[in-house]
């Protein structure tokens, strides 16, 4: 190494104060600093500034909500979550505060779109059952005929009721498929309206009655006793809810 001078000292000063220089260079610099008050003063300034940054510049820690949302998006297929995330951010990135963000993620996690997928398919299946004249595999208004028919065809036991007395006569039952899962479908009639009640097993917790409408059909759905119930018809909402309540109570 060449003789140490102020110019060389300046160019190596950062490495010196960060202890990044090879030992011999470090030593030569120390030697120069011992004899040069100008360089020493400069080094002290730099050290002061570095200390001030360390002490006073904020260190932004990752919010809990962020770490949690990352973990939860990693645990499920990343593609759909990323899209949701992007939508969320594009929608209001500049104004979305941490709190709103956390709340949005929480709501998103709490209302899985899977419910939507189920009701969508139930509506399609209901429409199919009407068109294909394939409403019933077993035509009977007798629950004691319909229920045993399901046995052996399903790995769960759907409740079967006839509500003729309340204006909802049972027409029969059939096997259906929702989300690649075998489902029990029970057909009822009310006036001239056909009603399908779909039942599939679920691991999700029980939930209250929910009414919605899709493609002109009314839907009443809930979860109970590890089963998901979806009732679909063009019958009006209130009457469909009545059937929902009856089925719920019947259990």
């Amino acid at each position, binding site marked *: 190494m060449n003789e140490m001078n102020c110019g060389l000292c300046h*160019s190596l000063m950062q490495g010196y104060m960060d202890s990044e220089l090879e030992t011999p260079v470090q030593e030569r610099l120390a030697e120069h600093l011992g004899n040069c008050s100008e360089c020493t003063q400069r080094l002290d*300034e730099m050290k002061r500034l570095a200390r001030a940054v360390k002490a*006073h*510049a904020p260190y932004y820690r*990752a919010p809990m909500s*962020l770490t949690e949302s*990352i973990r939860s998006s*990693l645990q499920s297929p990343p593609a759909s979550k990323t899209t949701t995330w992007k939508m969320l951010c594009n929608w209001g*990135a500049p104004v979305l*505060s941490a709190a709103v963000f956390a709340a949005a993620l929480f709501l998103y996690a709490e209302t899985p779109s899977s419910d939507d997928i189920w009701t969508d398919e139930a509506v399609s299946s209901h429409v199919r059952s009407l068109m294909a004249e394939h409403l019933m595999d077993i035509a009977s208004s007798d629950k004691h005929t319909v229920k045993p028919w399901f046995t052996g065809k399903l790995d769960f036991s759907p409740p079967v009721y006839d509500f003729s007395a309340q204006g909802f006569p049972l027409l029969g039952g059939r096997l259906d498929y929702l989300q690649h899962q075998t489902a029990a479908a029970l057909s009822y009639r009310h006036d001239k309206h056909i009603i399908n009640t779909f039942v599939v097993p679920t691991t999700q917790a029980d939930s209250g009655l929910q009414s919605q409408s899709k493609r002109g059909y009314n839907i009443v759905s809930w979860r109970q006793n590890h089963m998901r119930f979806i009732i679909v018809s063009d019958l009006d909402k209130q009457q469909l809810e009545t059937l929902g309540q009856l089925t719920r109570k019947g259990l």
Partner: protein
Amino acid sequence: MRLSHTADMKRFDELLAPHMDAAYNLARWLTANESAAHDVVQESALKAFKFLHRFEGGNAKAWLLTIVRNESYNWLKASAGHRWVAIGEGIPEDDMALSHALTPEIDAIRTEDAALLQQALKALPPVFREVIVLKELEDMPYKDIAKVTDVPLGTVMSRLARARAMLKTEFMKLYRHE
């Protein structure tokens, strides 16, 4: 499939999760925007997770921060739209004149003034801001800063010299105006 996913989660927890603070801090300083920092870290973590099988050991923190840095710059470029964004590229690295010329009396300055210091650091172009953040706040060695910022080791030192000199100038400027 299930098993490898669980194994990946375990690796994520071991290798990446401990550096979420560092990732967020860098993204927050570079984007200067809270929700953007969220976005950047989320995207970076998903990318890191996706390519975790390619990570062959070494410094997981530097590896993650490299991704965070790239994502932050992408955000800066995108948010600037068609406007030119001063990332700091094109500024001669060997221009030491600035730091040589600077001998202001910093002794008199209340460097404990946190707000001014923060403002001064924010005013630096991103390539200089990031070396300060990585060195002073993350306490990373030069070789890791070189990895994250994708420059040779020597450049880290000259960039840091430049960044510290600029920070001092900026701080003095703000201090005098106060």
